[in-house]
């Protein structure tokens, strides 16, 4: 690996702590990423030197804060090639971004009998809001199936689209299977079949780990979140085409999203501020801007290459463990650094993932267990729950070398 991962790890203060006396091995970046000192310092500096409310008043401090906030917006826009930075709305997280679309676009545009096309691999954040909307509008949800290899059955795509389909949405990367969906081709095919469909991509697990060019992908909406991309929590991003933002009603109402207010009515501000009511997470936006700088300084192609090598290495090592079932594509080309698995005999899970992950935790290895916010997907794979390891720029092969014996230890304890 010519990738200077040792140098990068020095930037992440938390990596030098221990967990119950064992060196921390953080393998849960799909849940949230760790933060480099640069991001931590930027937030601290902002709060110590430049803190004021944004978009209000004319004094110097407010100018500095506003400039920092809007500069971050531009950085984020450029990072994902979103074009005009006014097509970037700051929200709290990807979940809120999706809910914003459901409220502001969905309620106005989805009617009784309309269809919303999703996939079987949605995270709850891109399933539950649409369930809710479908219930309220009597619209219908349809799902592109997932096959045993964790890939979407895209040969069904055109069949699932009808003249009644108004919205199609899917993840760029699955948080359970790691599957990288061919989003550009999917968008093209959907538009070819029915050009009026609006397309939303859930990019929460993609943007932090690979180059993403939204203008290339040509989605109408694209959601992602700061805390998974080395930024702080509480700051997320919704990209939406300006023509849509122009027509959409606000999501939350109050200060900053208005132009003029009288006692009985108000007029709305221009986008994106129309969708950013109240005081935003200013230091969060500043931190996200610096996270973008940090990622850019390494390069997303490099990061993807690093994680792909780690994924390949891990898949190989895990497949050498008997009675271990991996979910999702075996080919690291098709997969991001997210690997869910179980200890099974036949099709039965014989070490509950909670127990497995607790034993890993005793070795300082922080992995995830549970339903991974994708209960229906796990049901398809007949798993009540799963264990999951996930990587980021700071993970190493040595950490995987520590993971394997820890899994073997768990197997021994349970006599598997």
């Amino acid at each position: 690996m010519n990738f200077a991962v040792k140098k990068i790890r020095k930037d992440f203060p938390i990596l030098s702590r221990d967990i119950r006396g064992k060196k921390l091995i953080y393998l849960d970046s799909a849940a949230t990423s760790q933060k480099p000192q640069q991001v931590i310092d930027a937030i601290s500096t902002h709060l110590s030197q430049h803190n004021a409310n944004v978009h209000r008043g004319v004094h110097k401090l407010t100018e500095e804060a506003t400039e920092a906030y809007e500069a971050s917006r531009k950085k984020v826009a450029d990072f994902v090639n979103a074009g005009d930075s006014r097509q970037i709305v700051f929200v709290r997280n990807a979940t809120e971004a999706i809910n914003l679309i459901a409220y502001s676009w969905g309620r106005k545009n989805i009617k009784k009998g309309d269809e919303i096309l999703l996939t079987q691999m949605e995270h709850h954040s891109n399933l539950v809001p649409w369930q809710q909307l479908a219930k309220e509008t009597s619209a219908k949800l349809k799902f592109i199936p997932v096959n045993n290899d964790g890939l979407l059955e895209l040969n069904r795509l055109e069949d699932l689209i009808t003249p009644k389909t108004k919205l199609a949405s899917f993840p760029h990367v699955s948080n359970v299977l790691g599957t990288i969906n061919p989003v550009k081709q999917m968008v093209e095919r959907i538009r070819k079949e029915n050009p009026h469909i609006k397309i939303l991509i859930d990019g929460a697990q993609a943007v932090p780990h690979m180059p993403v060019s939204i203008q290339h992908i040509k989605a109408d909406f694209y959601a992602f979140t700061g805390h998974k991309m080395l930024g702080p929590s509480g700051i997320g991003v919704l990209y939406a085409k300006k023509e849509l933002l122009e027509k959409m009603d606000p999501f939350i109402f109050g200060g900053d999203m208005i132009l003029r207010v009288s006692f009985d009515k108000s007029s709305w501000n221009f986008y994106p501020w129309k969708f950013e009511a109240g005081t935003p997470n200013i230091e969060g936006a500043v931190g996200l801007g610096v996270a973008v700088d940090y990622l850019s300084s390494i390069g997303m192609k490099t990061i993807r290459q690093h994680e792909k090598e780690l994924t390949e290495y891990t898949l190989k090592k895990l497949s050498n463990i008997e009675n271990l079932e991996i979910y999702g594509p075996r080919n690291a080309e098709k997969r991001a650094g997210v690997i869910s698995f179980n200890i099974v005999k036949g099709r039965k899970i014989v070490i509950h993932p909670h127990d497995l992950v607790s034993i890993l935790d005793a070795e300082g290895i922080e992995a995830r267990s549970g339903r991974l916010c994708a209960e229906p997907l796990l049901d398809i794979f007949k798993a009540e729950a799963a264990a999951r390891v996930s990587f980021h720029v700071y993970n190493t092969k040595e950490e995987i070398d520590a993971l394997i014996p820890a899994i073997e230890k768990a197997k021994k304890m349970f006599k598997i």
Partner: protein
Amino acid sequence: MNDSIYREEILEIIVNPQNRGTIQDPDLEATLDNPLCGDEIRLQIKLNGSRIGKARFSGGGCAISLASADLLAQSIEGKRLTQIKKLETSDILKLLGMNPNPARMKCALLSLEVLKNALQG
């Protein structure tokens, strides 16, 4: 973690549970699941007058929830209903001989919750 959660006694219970099974015609029964992780415990009870005659648990779950269910089912057999109704969190933890962290506490207490449901029904 206290490696003690997975100490020999607990693992033995998983391999050889004493009270796992089903009762054909239970007098009391309840099933509960922990939606966070897929643990599901069913408890069935056959009464003997005002005492618990037979208690069996079934279902799937993590080691802590299964061990807790087995130990609980064992301990209530022969006891009066009035006694059982008084069981609470600290009793379960004493039975299990462990103090799980907050994340695993739900697993340990699932069987107690099922028991309380069964006693109501």
